[in-house]
């Protein structure tokens, strides 16, 4: 039992921190370079081998580790040290409730590929995320610098505002799935629905012709809650404070904001937190809106039932497990790419524009989404 939990923990943390994290810093530079018609980072080398810039993440870490660690005069040492730690911990512990695979039966043991399968998983994500605000608040205050303080004011008000709308934007999703447990949410997306099925439901067509049966979509959150997806992605990207929502920093106004007085690995921790959140956001959005580990148009039962006659149940389940983990990671990679694309495409928003977007556009839209979703659910249940 304990061994199983530790293995699952190590897997998800090592994949995220050991594989995604260093690669993402490289991908970000290279993608920026490609989109701006440059070559990008390629100068770090070991004995002349440059490996298309893949050594840069290692060079960055070495540089940060060997840099002088400055604590400004008049700063509160303890809080100054604590702030980067508070920033990074939420990103890591969120991984505990994200399923990277489904449930698999091997004989009489069941393997559930999530570290903590708790009933209130999504509430846990929101609660843990709300703690991250303190990293930004404390960093700015403990640095004893006015621009840092202004930066942390902006960061904390932005994060608190978007927390509210982030919770509201996925209420519709909770209503559709009827659960807050992330593994159940992912499992609920492991089937398909007929694209034109609503014609039959509303009685506009007596019976759909059989040849239309192939016209199916996976029952993913993005198809069931398209508006919810756009709102949630906007909110969670604003929570991460990366461009275009990087109002807490601004070269021409408040310099680097709340992490201006940080150097060496303390700055490195803020940087790590920001970059680690990118694949964590990808994993969360994949689980909520893209079926998590589910393979589109190929449900777990179909796959296991199809492979079992030829190779046996054990092999079929094992193959299913492997394909599901790969499917999950592919979705995370795709969503990381999407976030990078957004980051290098949209212009930076001004601070008041960020707040206006939250309170004047996303909040009413998410409330409307809740009402429309509730009405539709009632209508569909009545017609069934």
């Amino acid at each position, binding site marked *: 039992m304990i061994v199983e939990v530790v293995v699952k923990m190590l897997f998800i943390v090592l994949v995220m921190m050991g594989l995604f994290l260093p690669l993402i810093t490289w991908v970000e530079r290279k993608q920026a370079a490609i989109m701006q018609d440059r070559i990008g980072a390629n100068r770090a080398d070991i004995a002349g081998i440059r490996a298309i810039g893949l050594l840069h993440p290692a060079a960055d870490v070495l540089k940060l580790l060997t840099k002088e660690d400055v604590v400004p005069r008049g700063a*509160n040492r*303890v809080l100054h040290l604590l702030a980067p730690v508070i920033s990074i911990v939420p990103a890591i512990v969120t991984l505990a409730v994200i399923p990277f695979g489904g449930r698999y039966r091997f004989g009489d043991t069941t393997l559930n590929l999530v570290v903590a399968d708790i009933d209130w998983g999504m509430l846990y994500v929101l*609660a*843990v*995320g709300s*703690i991250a605000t303190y990293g930004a608040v404390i960093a700015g205050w403990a640095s004893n610098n006015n621009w840092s*303080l202004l930066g942390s004011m902006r960061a*904390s008000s932005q994060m608190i505002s978007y927390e509210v709308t982030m919770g509201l934007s996925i209420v519709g999703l909770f209503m559709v799935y009827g659960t807050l447990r992330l593994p159940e949410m992912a499992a609920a997306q492991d089937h398909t629905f007929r694209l034109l099925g609503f014609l039959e439901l509303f009685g506009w067509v007596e019976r759909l012709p059989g040849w239309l049966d192939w016209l199916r979509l996976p029952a993913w959150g993005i198809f069931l809650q398209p508006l919810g997806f756009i709102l949630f992605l906007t909110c969670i990207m604003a929570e991460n404070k990366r461009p275009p929502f990087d109002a807490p920093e601004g070269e021409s106004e408040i310099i680097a904001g709340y992490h201006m007085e940080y150097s060496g690995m303390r700055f490195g921790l803020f940087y790590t937190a920001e970059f680690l959140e990118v694949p964590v956001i990808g994993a969360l959005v994949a689980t909520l809106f893209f079926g998590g580990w589910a393979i589109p148009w190929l449900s777990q039962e179909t796959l296991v039932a199809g492979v079992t006659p030829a190779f046996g149940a054990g092999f079929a389940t094992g193959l299913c497990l492997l394909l599901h983990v790969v499917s999950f990671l592919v979705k995370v990679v795709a969503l990381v790419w999407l976030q990078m694309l957004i980051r290098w495409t949209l212009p930076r928003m001004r601070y008041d524009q960020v707040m206006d977007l939250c309170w004047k556009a996303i909040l009413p839209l998410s409330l409307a989404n809740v009402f429309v979703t509730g009405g539709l659910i009632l209508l569909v249940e009545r017609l069934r």
Partner: protein
Amino acid sequence: MSAAAVFFYAFAALAVAGGLGMVLNVRNTVAGAMSLVLTMVALGGVYVLLEAYLVGVLQILVYAGAIVVLFLFVVMLLNLRGEAFGPERQGFAKVLGVAVVAVLLAEFVWLLPGAFGAPATPPEGFGGYRAVGLALFTDWLLAFEVTSLLLLAAMVGAVVLAKRSIE
């Protein structure tokens, strides 16, 4: 000692440490507020051990994640440090505080043990969001709606007060 007991004592110790940190950090209000956050989070852990999952999460989400941040906003903007507080002169308040704590401690030590008998087994799904939601929207609907009206009034009031001029 069972695993639950180990976690309980760990969270309880953290909560007490946070409480002490808040009270003793009189001269550094931000550190005091951060200690309060520690207490809130530890209390959330204790609630989860009591199977009050929703209360535990709300404790962290609302108290630790939102309310104390607002405290910090005020404290940081006023930027009160050390000398701003002047000499200590709350002798009477201290005596009163110690007396209240002593009375409460005496109650805990002498009156509470054995006062309640064995705890009842909670029903299925107790303390989860489903049970709380059902209770809120069926038995306590009127109280819920009245509370939301009260909060709305407070919100409108805050906006009116914060606006310098209303067109």
